[in-house]
């Protein structure tokens, strides 16, 4: 049943910018319009582009935010979330834990 909701109304997760907008709702409590505006400004695109796979795929690849089709060696998981936190200027708790355990 979640899949019909995704098709009908979802931003598209890591296919587009859905995960990034979701981070803003979770970490800054932004309502949908504010969250979209925030992410669009950070990515330097129009709000309508946030759900455009054609545009978001290149942005995600270039900013190393993770792409939905798997590119060997491309960042996914905690590495992609690390980049999302940097691009969005937010704290992600799993990323902070990861960084606290990373010694150079």
């Amino acid at each position: 049943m979640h899949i019909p909701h995704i098709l009908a109304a979802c931003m598209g997760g890591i296919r587009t910018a859905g995960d990034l907008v979701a981070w803003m709702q979770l970490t800054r409590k932004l309502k949908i319009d504010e969250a979209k505006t925030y992410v669009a400004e950070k990515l330097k695109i129009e709000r309508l582009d946030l759900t455009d796979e054609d545009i978001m795929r290149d942005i995600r690849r270039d900013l190393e935010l993770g792409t939905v089709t798997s590119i060997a060696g491309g960042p996914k998981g905690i590495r992609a979330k690390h980049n999302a936190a940097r691009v969005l200027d937010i704290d992600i708790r799993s990323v902070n834990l990861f960084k606290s355990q990373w010694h150079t």
Partner: protein
Amino acid sequence: MGNQIFVRMGDGERVRMAISEVKDNIRAGTAEAAKWGEIPELTSDEQEQLFEILAEPGRAVSVNPGEEVIVTDDGASMSFYSGQDGGGVGTPMSRMQAVLTYERACGADTTSLGHSDYSYKPVKPIINFEANDYYNISLHTTAPFLYGAQPNMGRYFQPDGPCPNASELIPKGKVQEALDAQEEAAAMLEDDLVYVGRKLAEVGLEGINFDTCGSAGDADYLAALKAVRRLKDDLPDLPVVMGSSGEFILGMHGGVDYDGARLAGLYPHDQVKLAADAGASIYGMAVNTTTTKPLPWNLAQATTFMKATTKAAAIPVHANVGMGVCGIPMMEQPPIDAVTRVSKSLVQIGKADGL
């Protein structure tokens, strides 16, 4: 079809309905919400918009480009590997495989992990197992990854739990004993919610979902509110999603309050203010589907509540749109035509921030 369209009853049955009857049901549904919630009805334009969504000829409908919202979930990945009673399709997958499939193959905005019982009480004794799974999976997920379950205060009553059963005491006239039992259970529940939240926070928890708060009544809801506040006091960076279980909080106790606000009978547009005050990042609105009423009635009711709630809210509001809530038919396999019409209506008319 002529002057008729297909609609679903609240139990999922497909029926033909005259256009005039569809519009009558929309009027009646919004009037019902307005009466009980003391909120405005949908305007005539909004009622017409709702009718147009219901009458769209396609089997599935969707929001207009640019109006998409965030879709969170209540254990969606569990539906891949669980069985019938969990709405699951029984595919033999690990929890990690299910979460990553949901994220990558389905394009979900967020994902989640939850115990099969989907209640917090049974999580407590196995918290280290859950923490290990959460931590391992969180290294691989890219989208926000939450831990979710229901407060479910009913688990604390005998014979499953330690407290005298309030539902058995009340019919015997032991009212004070029933009130005491609920308060005792609520205190235990609150502590368990905080315990699980804190333990998972130690392994980098990205967010926690208290789903279906108030299912055992106002004391259940109070425990969740107090747990959210305690967690946020300790862990201000921890996102918390707080979802409700119905359009009003059941007064099973009747006398509990949160910062002076009596909880029994509170509707979503007031619930969201308390959730925000406690520190929740997202509030989940639930409106129970009436199985004997058709989709136009149920959806008009839910959309009316959603519109009032998003207007009153200082935080994002998501619609709980699982089986039997917010207009979704109460059945195991909610029909796609009904599900997508609920999605579109709650977003475009109710102005939901998410589902």
